[in-house]
């Protein structure tokens, strides 16, 4: 099992969700986050006081999937979240040791 975490541009969320649903992903978790990468931040100016805002708003999605789905999911996120401009985000993949469905107590791949 794998946990795919992707940081994407907020306005791309719906597209990514739809694309993932289309390939059969049945659930994901979304968090509003802030951070910076190569895109850097921007400056704000209030009555002459200049603030450099380093952290830009992004959306983090987390998808837990069976290992054999990994390539498809990565490819789907990569295509649907892409704008070609700096700041499109990153995808992180980690191995997932255990998953439990709380309602039924099922565990392992059946719980996904």
């Amino acid at each position, binding site marked *: 099992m794998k946990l795919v975490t992707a940081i994407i541009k907020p306005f791309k969320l719906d597209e990514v969700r739809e694309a993932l649903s289309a390939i059969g992903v049945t659930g994901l978790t979304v968090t509003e986050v802030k951070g910076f990468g190569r895109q850097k931040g921007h400056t704000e*100016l*209030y009555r002459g006081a200049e603030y450099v805002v380093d952290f830009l708003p992004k959306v983090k999605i987390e998808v837990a999937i069976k290992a054999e789905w990994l390539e498809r999911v990565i490819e789907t996120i990569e295509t649907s979240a892409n704008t070609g401009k700096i700041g499109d985000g990153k995808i992180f993949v980690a191995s997932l040791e255990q998953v439990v469905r709380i309602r039924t107590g099922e565990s392992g791949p059946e719980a996904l």
Partner: protein
Amino acid sequence: MKKLFALLGLVCVLLLPRLVLAEDAASAPGIAAPAAVVSAAAAPRLDSGATAWMMTSTALVLLMTIPGLALFYGGMVRKKNVLGTLMQSFAITAMITVLWMVAGYSIAFDTTGMEKGVINVHSFFGGLSKAFLYGMGKDSLTGSIPESVFMTFQMTFAIITPALITGAFADRMKFSAMMAFTALWSLLIYAPIAHMVWSGDGGFMWDMGVLDFAGGTVVHINAGVAGLVAALVLGPRLGYGREPMAPHNLTLTVIGAAMLWVGWFGFNAGSAAAADGRAGMAMAVTQIATGAAALGWMFAEWIGKGKPSVLGIASGAVAGLVAITPASGFVGPTGGLVIGLVAGVVCFWSATSLKRMLKYDDSLDAFGVHGIGGIVGALLTGIFAVESIGGTQGSLLQFMIQLKGTAITIVYTAIGTYLILKALDWAMGLRVTEEQEREGLDIALHGERIE
């Protein structure tokens, strides 16, 4: 704190008999208060048109403080201090209402012992014969309006002036110290300055010929300079210049600025104390100067810093309102246009460059906008005054009189404010603790927060 309450209690006890007498006098028919403007020649008569406009103006000016100024300031602070900032304006409104009734009105507008051209103690302080509004009955008149309306109209000015100062010490003053400061400042600084400028023949600055239609010296220079002194005495906010202190919600600020703009018609046109051509001219120049100042600030910022900001245009509008305040009722449309433009550009400079140059933390620019804007307006009134509007023609001589009035106000309020703050610092402390300041005034002082 206990000492303060004890003192306050004592004052109330001493003044209580007057309160009872005041009620008696009010209910006794035929006893009218000797109003300032009453002349022996013709018995003054109530003008219902003027009265209707003045009651409307009073409501408009109250709207400027709550919610106008409260929102204007509330949007500019960080999220952890927004309730504390709104609370300051609201609590000041409530407290000054009571203080004005108890003694403030009397110190400002009691004309006992005043005589044209004679300088005595009553040129600076009104007596206490109107304390607890003694003698103000249903039929008392001030000019052609009921004294009750005049008193309430002036009360709303007494309310907004200390509320303006709160912008200078935002985010760091103890609520208890703010209340004590406001009470003392209102009675010892605001009321005397209002008396010197507005009480009529025998008033110190009135006799000098200082022109101040709606409060350039009394309200804006007074509050702005007091704010600067308070910012210097309290010191900068923790992390000032290093940590981000961006406004948390400029939507509130824009709504507040818009309410100030609308309410200001009551402030300026209402200061005619009549519904006449002069009031109409005051309304017109108020609108013109405000538009010009908003554009002045916006273009100065656009050229100087690259972008026309929302906070900038809103601040510019307020700067224009401030600057036209003393001039409305004296200047014509062209004068209003020039005063507005100059105020917009100069206040942009004072709020952005001067403050950084001198390194004081006037958090929301009470001095940069109200102090500087007030000075610009007070001085230019002396140049652009038109005789056919307010009875005085602009001239170098009048400019010098305006300069003198401005200087006297600055010196009186700077020294007085400093002494009050130092005394309170000794008696109760002015600033919240470092932990409270970090946590935010909302939770630390009021036990609430917005989310």
